[in-house]
């Protein structure tokens, strides 16, 4: 569906935000994982027609995004990482206006808008000004506007940051519902979001795609290479010196350490890999995560 070929972008001042990105995004939920500053938002904005790459091409469903922005915008839903709203304008009025901009007219508009307000549980707050919303309400408003016009490409940039667990759950549920028939790109630095929802994932770092594929496959590839041990705090440094440590987690007062190794390190037990382990190992592989921490 969505094809990115050789996308590069260098900001004035020399920062290489995107370097030769190739990506195939099929229908369904696609997770874009990466640490802060990896270039996720730049990539999202580029796909959302808000920024131009220096090189490369992007097509969606046969649309050349860089040439025919309007065609993509007609089928795009976009939830930016941060957004605001016109002051002194209610959620209802705001959404109605955005619906109009998305080409929804006539009696349908009111219906669509009301439907989305109900769906995102904003019905009771519809007359409140969006800039007075709480974080969760605002994100829900964000997804409501992104869903206007039933987009076939939905880009959501860091949507769950700052949401409480219940809000996050509700939000992901809405996304999951949409993801059945749409291309959804979910950019995040929270691995759990991706693990729960996405059939496909790409890991980004320093403007590159470090790894892409199905999360289950990636996890499977790690089987037999991941080892864990509960240690005392004093021991951590010593183990770090000897092994590739992916993560250290505090668990009930002591520290669980997870390390990568082709053979079983002494004193460590095999562990079941998770997407987070894949993510960390990928970063370490590309020297993007300091082993010593």
């Amino acid at each position, binding site marked *: 569906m969505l094809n990115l070929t050789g996308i590069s972008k260098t900001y004035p001042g020399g920062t290489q935000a995107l370097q030769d990105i190739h990506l195939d995004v099929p229908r369904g939920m696609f997770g874009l994982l990466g640490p802060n500053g990896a270039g996720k938002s730049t990539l999202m904005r580029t796909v959302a027609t*808000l920024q131009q790459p220096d090189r490369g091409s992007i097509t969606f469903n046969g649309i050349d995004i860089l040439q025919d922005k309007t065609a993509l*915008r007609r089928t795009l839903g976009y939830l930016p990482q941060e957004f*605001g709203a016109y*002051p002194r304008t209610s959620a209802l009025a705001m959404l109605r*206006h955005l619906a109009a901009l998305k080409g*929804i007219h006539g009696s349908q508009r009111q219906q*669509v808008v009301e439907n989305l307000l109900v769906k995102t549980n904003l019905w009771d707050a*519809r007359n409140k000004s969006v800039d007075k919303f709480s974080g969760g309400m605002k994100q829900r408003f964000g997804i409501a506007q992104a869903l206007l016009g039933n987009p076939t490409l939905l880009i959501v940039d860091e949507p769950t940051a700052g949401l409480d667990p219940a809000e996050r759950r509700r939000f992901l549920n809405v996304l999951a519902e949409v993801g059945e028939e749409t291309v959804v790109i979910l950019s995040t630095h929270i691995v759990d979001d991706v693990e729960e929802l996405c059939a496909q994932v790409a890991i980004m770092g320093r403007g590159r795609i470090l790894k892409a594929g199905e999360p289950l496959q990636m996890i499977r590839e790690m089987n037999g290479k991941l080892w864990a041990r509960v240690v005392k705090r004093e021991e951590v440094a010593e183990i770090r010196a000897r092994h590739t440590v992916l993560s250290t987690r505090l668990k009930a007062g002591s520290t669980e350490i997870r390390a990568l190794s082709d053979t079983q390190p002494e004193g460590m037990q095999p562990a079941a890999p998770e997407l987070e382990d894949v993510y960390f190992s990928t970063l370490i592989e590309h020297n993007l995560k300091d082993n010593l921490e």
Partner: protein
Amino acid sequence: MRALLEVMQFEIRYQLRSPFFLGALLMFALIHFLSFTGVVNIGDISNQVAINRAYAMLNTELALFIFGMLPIVAFVTTAITRDFEHATASLIYVTPISPRTFALGRFLGALSPALLIGLAGLLGAMIGTFMPWLDQERIAPFSLLPWAYIFFVVILPSTLVLCAIFFSVAALTRSFALTYAAAMAFFVADVLLNLYAKPGNDTWFALADPSARLAVAVETRYWTVAELNANLPWGLLPQNRLLWLMVALAALLLALLRFRLDLAEKAPFRFKRRSRGAATTQQTRRPAKQKITPVQSFSPRASFAQFVSQLKLDLSCVLKSPLIYIILALEIINLIGEFQGNVGLLNTPLYPLTSQMLPFLRVGMLGPILLVGLWYPAELIHRERASGIDEIINASPFPDWLMILSKTTALCVVVNALMLVAVGASMAWQAAAGYTNFEPGLYLQSAFIYNGIYYCMLCALAVVIQAISPNKWMGMLLTLGVYIALPSLALMGFDHALINFGIPEAVYSDMNGFGHVAKPVFSLIAYWGAFCVLLLIAGLLLYPRGNYSSARERLRDARARFGAGVRGAAGLAAIAFIGVGGWIFYNTNILNEYLTPYKRLQRKADYEKAYGRHEDAPSPSYDSIDMAIDIFPEERRLESRGSAILGNHKKAPISEFVVSVNPALRMNQMAVENATLAQSDKAQGFYLYRFNAALAPGATVKMTWNVTCRNEGFVAADPDNKVVANGVYVNNIDVTPIPGYDNNRRITDNAQRRKYGLPPAPRTAALGDPARLYKLAFGVDSRTDFEIVLSTSADQIAVAPGVLQKEWRQGGRRYFHYKAEAPILPYISINSARYEVARDRWNDVELEIYYDPKHPFNIAAMMATAKRALEFFSKEFAPYEYSYLRILECPRYLKGARFHPGTVPYSEGAGFVNDLREWENVDYGVIHELAHMWWGLRITGAQMQGRQMLNENMVEYATQMLFREYYPPVYINRLTRGRLGGYLDSRSDEDEAELPLMYAEERGHKGPLALYALQDIIGKEKLHQALRNFLRDYSFQTSPCPTSRDLINALRAEAGPEYQQLITDLFERIVLYDLQVDAASARKVDGGYEVTIEVTARQFEADGRGKETEEPLDSWFDVAVFAETRENLDGVTPLYIAKHRLRSGKQVLTVRTSERPGIAALDPFHKRVERSAENNSRIIAAPPITGP
């Protein structure tokens, strides 16, 4: 303390790094530089005042005060509200800094760049004064004192005041818009105070004026040029600044006390907003969840729906902001001020005809519109980004043109709504005055076509500027720069309509409608309209949609947007722009000749350089004129032909002479008998004829001509307003050849003359210069027989001087044959219009008023005034010369009125629409022009110093005497008071050195004052006997013409020996008095009261620059005692008034009154010249109850 310094330094660093600061710095330095080098005119001062002295600097500095407010508002509001905008508030506000320290630090941090900008302006000005191309005569030797004065008395306190007050508003409201509104309130207060301040009541106004402009004006009101150059105003100006500093300090303290470091939604002071919706929330039924598959549509109709949705939001943005209502209030206040200030001659109120109200749609509205244009494009264009919704909006599938078009349309709607309010206000004003002929169609035309479109263009310009600017402050600065630069273009010599963005004001005349100005205005609307479309297309291409990391990317995006539709629109607009531009160019530069202002002056300079030597060459002059003029008003064409007998009235033979022709005329034929054309220059209208045999004294020669005055198409600037469809008024110089060199074309301003390589203009010829005694105007040294046949359209009446011999119709046209009954001066008026005629008779004189049927209001009053004036002047001076008097209404292109032999062309904007009730239904203009029939036509003063003694001065004196004769004293006293103020005012505008009356070169206020004082002392009868003697001796005399000396001699002969010195002081020297009542008391005596008045009196002689030297006083002054204690005594009859002879120094006067005295006054009716009349009166201490 350390925290304070830290906050302040941080703020200064922040501000100094912003491009806005740099831009403002450069712009202020540049504006000052341009203003001081005379490229841009800011403030209006005498060109004798040195540009590097305090007064000239003050003028510029205070005028720029208003512009200075923008950067200050920007600095202080960003300083205090930035944290909310950038969401850094939560970081900073949790630090353990006290709110006061924080706010004070930010204030000081914002003050510094503001002061730097003030200094940059001063520096720009200072550099400007050293530019070598400046007129060195206007530069005084360098002195640091005035510069220091300007900095410490004006720039420093003003910056402090503005920063402190705006900072307080910004801190307390946390609102840009309200701070901008506070700046506007300053502006309005300044305008209103300046509008309503009148001499007498203005001290408090001057202290209250936030810009202090008024303080300077009041303080320096009667300063002479010498004083303006030498002195610094140390009175009202510093007081005003001190007062405002205190106000500012109080505001700052309040702000510091109330300022809180918190993130409360509510600012300490803010408009409360009704929270709507909360109540209704629960009422509507919650729709059931359902699956909807909406159909998206992007057809043109759907695009329009998108546009409408955006437009609604943009409009509500403007309409929900409190600022627009403040602008609305400003508009109405401004309009009312203009309405009230709309008065005619002698401050007579004007009837509120719709044609009188239309100009306010320009002068009253441009200001509010520019405020809208400055603020709202910034607000609207940067609105999405400011609110953070830009990414969502920009990724939506709307066409690229939508945003810029919506913003522009919203502004146009707002502008037109403001215009509609202005129309409503104008109509309300008319209705309040009981006037009901509203002419709504005319209003709509003027409001929405002749002005509204222009205002929309100004807004479109600002929209595009904002679309290109990185942020709104930068955009506002640029917009401000453009708004200042646009009107300066013409001043800098770019006055061609094709390069001067804008629609010039179209004058509407009740007689002639929009007439000939409609076509150029419509062409310019099309031309600049197409230009605006092109601009908007540029804005559409460059409108930021998304994130650009470089200009190249933005251009790439622009190229992508430049699709077929946009290309087509741009192409059409470009074709329209070039096509209409070409058509305008064809009209202005091919059908007509266009010269830049410089070239126009150059042409005059060339004329003088090439032919100036002929100026004093003897020339024959008219003995008789027999001519015909065919007027084709609808075509704006006029055919003039005829013959004149020219006679040599000199004492020597004439071998050659110059004939001058208005260069705009088309020459069909011209010939002089027995002479050959020796030299000709068509472009300059210069023809030199050489006689085959010299023309002997007394001999005559015949000149014939046939010329056409034609207006084809339209011109780029200064259209011909004389030959128009309804209301032709030309005089013979416009449409016939005139013997003699045309010295009216001389450049009179010496600075200009130097620029064009001409020697300084000769001052008016010295009194008694024998070469000028025999010449009246150029080409005139005699009276002439006169006969004319006029023809015009069938529905018009054509009028010229002379007795109407015959009137007939022929070939669908009307003909009129006029013939002068006796020789007249060849100052011929020719009028034609669709006139209504009112007729009356005074003795043997036919009185006729030719007026437009729309203006019947004052015809009876004018007729009565004319009769009274004829009667009074005939009795006091000499019989009226003509058997007719014709007053002719002209379109308002003519200002005031003119006089010709027996005819008075009079503007529709003046006497015909005055509400004369305040002047007892007397029309001042009629009296004035009628007095010219004696003083100006019967007596024709020689063209030299003192000429106005025999002309305007006598006319004004005669007018005053008529009021004194027939009407209550309040009128004459009001007139005299005005004259005195006018004279004293004029001394600070004096371009050359002031000369005593007998030598004066221009009309002035002093002449009538002096004559009035003289008759007051020696008696009216004596003075008028002298005038009758003078008229007996000099009426109709043209070779030699009489001079002011002849008049003074006539006065001296009648006045008697004791008044000779008085005449010398009044007319031959510049003398001022200083009278003062030191004490006044009264005691009861038999049959009344005895009032003792202690006075001090002094006399000064002033030189031409106003430098005064005291000298002994011995003269007569009114001493008066009034029962009332009012300040203005114009209409009060005194208990006692008599002339007392006063001498220098202190003296005690004793007078008796029958009734209880209230006030003792010296010269209460302002007959003598005195600068400080405030201390001329004193309330008399209550007399003791018991007698002696």
